[in-house]
């Protein structure tokens, strides 16, 4: 479904501000994979998503999507296959437009012609969809999105993203800006839609429990590299303690090998 091969990303190359954020990273996600990604601040998780979605281009390496090379394809074109949700609940919706207008915008991907699709049947369909969120928003379809709470907005964004029918879902700490109960609610909705549509999903989270409970594969990133990659049965049996131990181990190993290199 999506493959990154030996990707390196260096910001501001050749200047004093030069910074390599992704180092020779390779990752393949198969159709239906649900991969959780954890890692400390600045590990390069968001940059990884930016590379996949085309918001930034790699300095080296190749990206393929559905067996098509997309390494330098512009973001809007790749977006035909990708649904992306950001941490900021404001980022996914147009705040000064109504709920139904927002849904109409995300009801399909790509360029559209000046024809009116938002008719009564479509309104009903949107209202029914919003009803599945169970937030009472179906009675406020003509209210501006700016009048919604952060949790409601993020849940709506999730719904809208799925509505546009992506093949790949990129979730970047999409519950991090919400209070615990809203976060749990959005997480639940997320789980539901991913299962319903068997979407290939990459989800960044800072919540170890989410990372363990969710999906069939877990990746830990550090300093632009994948340092832990567990899947299948191993992933199912993973515990919080084991994960923390793994993190400590790999870092220590890396540190030791550096030391060895330096001393010889």
């Amino acid at each position: 479904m999506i493959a990154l091969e030996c990707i390196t990303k260096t910001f501001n190359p050749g200047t004093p501000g030069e910074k390599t954020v992704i180092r020779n990273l390779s990752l393949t996600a198969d159709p239906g994979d649900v991969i959780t990604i954890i890692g400390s601040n600045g590990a390069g998780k968001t940059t990884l998503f930016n590379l996949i979605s085309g918001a930034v281009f790699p300095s080296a390496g190749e990206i393929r999507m559905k067996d098509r090379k997309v390494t330098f394809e512009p973001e809007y074109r790749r977006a035909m296959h990708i649904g992306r949700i950001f941490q900021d609940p404001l980022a996914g919706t147009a705040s000064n437009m109504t709920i139904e207008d927002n849904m109409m915008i995300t009801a399909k991907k790509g360029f559209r012609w000046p024809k009116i699709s938002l008719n009564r049947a479509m309104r009903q369909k949107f209202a029914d969809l919003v009803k599945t969120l169970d937030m009472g928003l179906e009675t406020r379809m003509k209210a501006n999105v700016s009048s919604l709470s952060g949790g409601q907005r993020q849940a709506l964004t999730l719904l809208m993203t799925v509505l546009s029918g992506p093949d790949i879902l990129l979730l970047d700490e999409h519950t991090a800006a919400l209070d615990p109960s809203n976060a749990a609610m959005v997480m639940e909705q997320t789980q539901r839609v991913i299962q319903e549509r068997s979407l290939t999903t990459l989800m960044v989270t800072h919540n170890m429990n989410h990372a363990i409970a969710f999906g069939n594969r877990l990746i830990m990133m550090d300093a632009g590299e994948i340092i832990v990659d567990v899947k299948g049965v191993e992933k199912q049996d993973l515990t919080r303690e084991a994960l923390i131990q793994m993190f400590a181990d790999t870092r220590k190993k890396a540190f030791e090998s550096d030391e060895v290199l330096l001393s010889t």
Partner: protein
Amino acid sequence: MIEGIFVEGLIYAIMALGVFFTFRILDFPDLTVDGSFPMGAVIMATSLHAGVNPLSGLVMAFCGGVSAGFVTAAIHNKLKVPHLLAGILTMTMLYSVNIRILSNRANLPLLRVDTILTRVHSACEGILSPEIASLIFFILVVLGLKLALDLFFLTDLGLVFGALGNNEQMVRVQGVNPATLKLIGVGLSNGLVALSGAFAAQYQGFADVNLGQGIVVSGLASVMLGEFLIKSNRIWALTLRVVLGAILFKAIMYLGRYYGYYINMTPNDLKLITGVLIIISLAASNYKRLRAKGDA
């Protein structure tokens, strides 16, 4: 006299709708307007003199404006030039282009040619006075354009325009190229502006390459005045208030021109007044925003 204010206000309202489109919907402050307005006027005048029928002349003026907008958007999209600079570049080039269109002249009178207005007047002869006929004609034209614009913003494409000024990231994530939208939007906007210029030339009886000086600022002033008249976020109300704002603006300018001498004002001070009007509008909306924050 009062019909005159309304007619001028309505003609300028078409331009103000274009300015509203770029400044408010696209969030693309486009200064091409100062060049595309006289462009509409000179295309209209030249084609009328060449014996083209007025309706085709209007269509040509509109297309001229659209292409001017395309140039600005292309400069911005392809060369990554900031909006303002891209607009200024096109506007400056249009000055020469407009003189070329007038065959190396700076102005062209339209006294003894058949214009859209002379046609309207002769059609209404004996029923309505020319002033009233013009007024009704422009009410219909502006209403038609306003409704067409309202309808456009309800379409799938129009809705994406609504999102672009608000959240460009969302548009990109939806698989729409923002550059394409800007091209279409700035093009359409300048088409409207040129149409307004074409009507203005016929109403005033001449086309002049200097017709557009500072016109974008008066368009912006109209948009801002309108925002004080109606509070809403429904598209039909947004376009309506632009039209009302343009008429109000013309009325204020009229008062300044004819009664300004009581306070020692000359017509040359009108640009100063326009600028001050915009500054007051900005200050007032800032103040309101701060107040709203304080209440929350």
